[in-house]
């Protein structure tokens, strides 16, 4: 179950992201990578405590050490103010509006998904691309988040099984193992 999106909204986001990062040869598409789950987790970051903003450290466990990335770090009060404002918008709260009102990502997504239309998921790819192109600002936001969901560490909810890293031949976080000197200097 998505944290923030309705099931319908989730499917629209998933289909839209697949157009932005489609499956191609060995590269999994946004759907297989769980990109919509990542975005849902970002918009609903404050459903968890600590919020899902900064993954923990120092190691993920993928190359040794304890698997600490999944233990998210607490935010300081000002950092919570910044991230809540980014996600929820300023909502008329004076502390969030020291440089004026801010529209949050939750609202941008509500509007963007509505504008793509309930029937977006059943339209053909050309029609889907056309609808995305007509919403340039939302498309840019969605693309940025889709990239994050595809290539950020899996603990953030996307990049399922680190499949995107494998596809692009990037090993990801490698502490505490690192690389040998020969791996740094030699051709392979």
């Amino acid at each position, binding site marked *: 179950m998505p944290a923030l999106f309705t099931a319908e909204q989730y499917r629209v986001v998933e289909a839209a992201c697949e*157009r*932005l*990062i*489609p*499956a*191609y*040869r*060995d*590269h999994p*598409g946004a759907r297989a990578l769980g990109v919509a789950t990542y975005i849902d987790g970002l918009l609903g970051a404050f459903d968890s405590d600590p919020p899902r903003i*900064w*993954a*923990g*450290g*120092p*190691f*993920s466990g993928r190359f040794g050490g304890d698997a600490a*990335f999944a233990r998210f770090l607490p935010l*300081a*009060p*000002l*950092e919570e*103010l*910044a991230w809540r*404002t*980014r996600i929820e918008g300023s909502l008329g709260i004076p502390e969030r509006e*020291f*440089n004026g009102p*801010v529209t949050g990502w939750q609202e941008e997504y509500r509007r963007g998904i509505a504008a793509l239309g309930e029937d977006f998921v059943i339209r053909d790819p050309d029609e889907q691309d056309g609808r995305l192109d007509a919403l340039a600002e939302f*498309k840019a936001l969605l*693309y*940025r988040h*889709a*990239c*994050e969901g*595809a*290539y*950020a*560490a899996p603990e*953030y909810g996307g990049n399922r099984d680190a499949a*995107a*890293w494998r*596809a*692009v*031949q*990037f090993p*990801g*976080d*490698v*502490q*505490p*193992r*690192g*690389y*040998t*000197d020969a*791996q*740094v*200097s030699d*051709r392979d």
Partner: protein
Amino acid sequence: MTDCDAVVIGSGPGGAAAAHVLAEAGWSVIMLEKGRNHLLELDPPFGPTGEISNDELKFAFRHFLGPDPFLEPRTFRRTDGDGDRVFTGDVNNLPSGVGGGGFHADGKLPRFREIDFRARAELGPIDGADVVDWPVDYDELEPYYAEAERLVGVAGEAGANPFASWRSSPYPMPPGPDMFGAVLSSAAATRLGYHPYRAPTGVNSEPYDGRPACNNCGFCGFFGCPIDAKGDPVGPLRQALRSGRCEIRPESHVSEILLDTTGKRARGVRYLDAGGTTREVAADHVVVAAGAFETPRLLLRCAVANSSGLVGRHLTFHFQTLVVGCFPFRLHGHRGRAVTHLHDDHMLVTGESRAAARAAGLPYFRAGIVEHGAAAGPLTEAVHLPPGELHSRLMLDSPLRDRLWVFTVQGEDLPQAVNRVDLDPSVRDVWGFPAGRVTYAPHRHEVACSAYVAPQLEAILREAGAEWTITTTSPPVDGENGAMGPAPASRHVMGTCRMGDDPTTSVVDRWSRFHDVENMICADSSVFPTAAGYGPTLTLVALAIRASRALAGLAALRSRRPEGA
């Protein structure tokens, strides 16, 4: 009765060096840092917090090192004619947190050369720029360079750079392993007559000062080090804490420098703590080390130390020329220290470069150090690609990451009084203080010099095997938005409280002491009279050590120039 002998504003490389020197001299030190502490435990044995990780999203996209541009926006305009601003957000942001502007750096720590302190005397004036000689020369600074290298822990190879100035001692550590891409690019540069060398780097190649050797994880530039193999500035900070006389207070935002009734002495500072409560520290001395952007912003905000009217002026960056080459095979630039080789050839004034400069109507060209380095991580690569099938295809082929090699020229940026940091008339930070604003346009020297060196660098990359090459600059040269935005992307910020003997033409004296406030020094790159073409960190640390020793009444360090050097 004061709370401490010295209060240090800022915990970056300069503040850390100052705190270490003063605490070692027996002073009690309170260090105020406006950002958070992710760097080290503040209780013995002052180990790592465990919060630093190989995480591109957290570091490069989610402002983990601060400042968050929502909480602390900065603004930018090229000239006064642009109106109040053309951009609001991240402008030359260095990390805001314990460790400051050392936290994110991949730790290239070159020294300046002798000529960099006396470019005006040796090369003469240049129209439209305020090039001046430093009141300090290389020989006087050399022992402080050596001390800075020992304090931070620099790995390097003495004698490898034929253009380097003399040294009194070897590097504390040998260099780490060469990156594969740099093996190719440095060999090609050598074949074409240039002189690449292994970069002096503040990253351990062997255990040093209780910290381990680097294990080449590759998350170096723009990341903190999860295993403490980078010494700047965790090394000096930890040493300061171990003295038992230094206390670090994170999330403490200095709002005001307090002067006594004469107006000529500082009596301490006022700051806001994490809960927003106003507090004061009464101190016998004040060390301002907030960085060359935040230092003038603070001084201008509280109208301190500015009888010259020059606080914030003569702002310099490095004019970055980024020359990239795409190779037909993978370079695995994600392994190793991000940059392992440099060459200095393009900052030399030669007969050939003088002729090219004259043809452009300038007396000389001085570009900067050339860093042989890798591209960024896959998330940064991804957001620069177009969406759609092309995205997935290019991510698989990786022409912009795994097959890319980059020469970054840290081009000397000539000082101009109109280039400055001041206070934005309406944009505010979360505490309600005016945002800092940059007004900056490069001198035509930087633009013409960049155009002169770029083809030479493209030729090196083609010699190394690149299939295609392309050059971009930051700031962009056409006056429009470039790939990295309108503002200079450089994190090398200098010159905003320039050093000199005359209080009407400079802000601090030759000991980095403010002309107007006798018990206050500046320990960051604000004091640089000129920018040179090298990363500023080692020089600012050397100057901070020198200024702090003088403040504490310690003898000047001396070193001996080797015979024949």
